[in-house]
């Protein structure tokens, strides 16, 4: 359940931004989470509501943009889709591949007032 910690980090980062950018209420939080980042999206949603209570983020909507996994295969010399972090190339079986997307864990943007 490290999703709770991730949610706490999100709230802390937003509170810092509130001080530096001068907003007092957050209406929407948009996150980008890769499918290979080891994050359970449902646990994240559950944790977010719990952690947001009483903070500047209380009551804000949560929008999670999921990023599919892709990796570079040095043998095929092209990008391939992957379902797992340390998967072999689905075309030629080469291992290891170089992950190019899918491990993101970022706050993208906020709608604030």
């Amino acid at each position, binding site marked *: 359940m*490290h999703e709770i910690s991730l949610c706490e980090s999100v709230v802390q980062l937003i509170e810092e931004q509130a001080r530096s950018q*001068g907003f007092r209420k957050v209406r929407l939080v948009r996150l980008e989470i890769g499918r290979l980042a080891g994050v359970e999206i449902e646990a994240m949603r559950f944790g977010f509501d719990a952690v947001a209570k009483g903070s500047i983020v209380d009551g804000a909507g949560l929008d999670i943009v999921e990023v599919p996994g892709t990796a570079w295969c040095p043998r095929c010399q092209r990008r391939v889709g992957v379902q797992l972090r*340390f998967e072999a190339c689905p075309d030629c079986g080469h291992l290891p591949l170089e992950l190019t997307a899918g491990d993101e864990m970022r706050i993208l943007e906020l709608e604030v007032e």
Partner: protein
Amino acid sequence: MMCTTCGCGEGEVAIDGHGHHHHHAHHLLDYGKGPAGGQVPGLSQTRMVRIERNILAKNDGYASANRQFLARMRIAALNLVSSPGSGKTTLLTRTLSDLKGEMPMAVIEGDQQTSVDAERIRGTGAHAVQINTGKGCHLDAHMVGHALDRLGPEAGSLLFIENVGNLVCPAAFDLGEVCKVAILSVTEGEDKPLKYPDMFAAAGLLLLNKIDLLPHLAFDVERCIGHARRVNPQIRVLQVSATTGAGMEAWYGWLRELRGAALAGLSEPVAA
């Protein structure tokens, strides 16, 4: 009391420790409570704010501060990760006993509850502080920063950070260590490196523990190492038994090398 490095309320933190730089009575820090919210005056119109920051940015900031402190003190810090029951604490107490007198060593012990492990560690004469994470399933760099304050580790020492027994969550949280060491006992499945790849990918060393039990098990050592190398081609592997002492000399050699590099100020983080 406010923390001077990060401004957190001291009440959020509960570390039971026997460090030597502190003047207050210490209790277990309970990390069950989240930060308090703050209201800041500002604009009242709705607008979009682009942030584009890694969610772990705060942790990574604390980790980087820990790493700078450790480098300045020429301390080699290891983050020990494993499933519960891998024999991590036994391995650690044997290491502390065997290397006692050769080099200064200190321990930060992480568990959800109790200070049983820190007491076992202190039994060897080593300085130890216990962090209880409460509901948390891993140590984070902020907790470790506070534990370092309490511990006051000696310059040039070897610091073991024993993470909460969990092969999933601790992989994502950098503590400021120079290397993660994954401990896997042969009584566990040889497929674990494939089932929990993030941890084995993040580790610089795999200690395969309890090898004295191999004759009684169907555990395929080569297969297990192959799985670990599949997710991390660079990972070093040492086979040990903390009970019989088999292979422990190679582990100590590895530790001496790591500490030598830290003393020379050459420490570079190993692996991801």
